């Protein structure tokens, strides 16, 4: 073989080999994870610079439907463990369903000091708009509804409720001031951009069912080593510390409360 041809062949082989060395995963994550997952993925990338990790945030229910329809997600983090359980039953998972956190809901406002409020403050007619996530399909919305019902406030509050498509949509209604208060995820209220405003009040978790959150590796990523690696990384001390920092309670530790 001529030297030029040999060089070309070598270059060709290298070009083929190079992308194969770098793996890629796409993560579908519930929108309450926005800030925590951004940080976890940034840390993960530091140790895996050659690889690509993409995260898409949205509503757990929508991802559930999309994965059934063949959406290209390798890991699915749901705010409600029921969705990944259903997918696992339907044969869409390549791992068992892993519980990764319990979420908490808070009363939050961008215009008032919500840390001095309680749910009972919502009865005040001066508060004309209260944002929650849509209880029909958003896990955080369901829990907000349960908490309002349990405190006997639902009937007083319902006519003034506005519904966000996801928990981050509800937070956005509050952040713009369009709704004076909202019931949002603690993980969003603890984000630096929102934490500076108005403060929050933690809603007692005995008022609602637990926000048990779970994830799976999807069937399409069954042979993807990077997905396995990220799965293992979720159990690391650093990841657990990040989750705690954003107000999530961790499975083994929630029992000690």
């Amino acid at each position, binding site marked *: 073989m001529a030297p030029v041809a040999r060089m070309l062949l070598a270059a060709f082989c290298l070009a083929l080999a190079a992308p194969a060395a770098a793996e890629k995963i796409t993560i579908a994550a519930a929108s309450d994870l926005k800030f925590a997952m951004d940080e976890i993925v940034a840390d993960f990338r530091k140790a895996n610079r050659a690889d690509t990790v993409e995260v898409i945030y949205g509503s757990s229910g929508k991802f559930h439907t999309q994965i059934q329809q063949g959406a290209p997600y390798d890991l699915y983090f749901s705010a409600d463990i029921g969705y990944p359980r259903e997918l696992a039953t339907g044969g869409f998972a390549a791992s068992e369903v892993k519980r990764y956190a319990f979420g908490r809901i808070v009363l939050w406002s961008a215009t008032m000091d919500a840390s001095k409020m309680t749910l009972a403050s919502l009865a005040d007619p001066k508060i004309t708009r209260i944002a929650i996530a*849509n209880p029909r399909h958003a896990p955080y919305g369901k829990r907000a509804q349960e908490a309002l019902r349990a405190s006997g406030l639902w009937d007083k509050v319902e006519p003034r409720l506005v519904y966000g498509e996801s928990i981050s949509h509800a937070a956005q209604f509050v952040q*713009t*001031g*369009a709704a004076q208060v909202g019931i949002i995820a603690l993980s969003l209220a603890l984000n630096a951009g929102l934490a500076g405003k108005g403060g929050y009040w933690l809603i007692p978790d005995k008022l609602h069912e637990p926000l048990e959150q779970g994830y799976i590796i999807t069937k399409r990523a069954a042979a993807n080593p990077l997905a396995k690696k990220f799965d293992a990384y979720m159990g690391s001390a650093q990841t657990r510390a990040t989750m705690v920092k954003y107000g999530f309670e961790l499975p083994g530790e929630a029992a000690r409360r």
Partner: protein
Amino acid sequence: MQAIWLTVRLAGIVTLILLVVGTPIAWGLARTRAWWKVPVGAVVALPLVLPPSVLGFYLLLAMGPQGPVGRLTEALGVGALPFTFWGLVIASVFYSLPFMVQPLQTAFESIGERPLEVAATLRASPVDAFFTVAVPLALPGFITASILTFAHTVGEFGVVLMIGGNVPGVTRVASVQIYDHVEALDYLQAHKLSLVMLLFSFIVLLALYWWRPAARRVG
């Protein structure tokens, strides 16, 4: 049913408002050769190319209590507009503006100078000439513009989602209700409402396409 009635009411009111607001804009754009014709035309066309999320985002900020429109409405004692029916009406007026103005402008332009000059020689005032000459001649344009505006408002989704807050009977229009059904995995309900929307859209377009050749013969 509530969602459909709400949608029809919203689209009807928006069409009426745009007939009043859009006609003078279209007339001005059709008659003038001034420098502002092009920039104003471009602004009117903006909602055609802007993602509804951009429009919804800015409207939410503008109408919120800290926004310029929000401050004005609070000062007037109307209260904040987001999450209200009238907030949706105002948003939809912006959203559907080109669908009223552009067909009207085309209709006015196709009349040409001549009929209006004749009217003027017969001592019709400009206002007289507009109502007795231009409007009857541009009638097919008015009908096309109204149908398009109505249909486009019915099809609105992104803007409503951004500023509506999904309140039943107030801002939960048909398109949002369908989205809700799908999100909640209630496909049966989603199918029912989607079918209604599909039939409605088809009938509107069918009527429009039947109307247009006839309009050309009359014109």
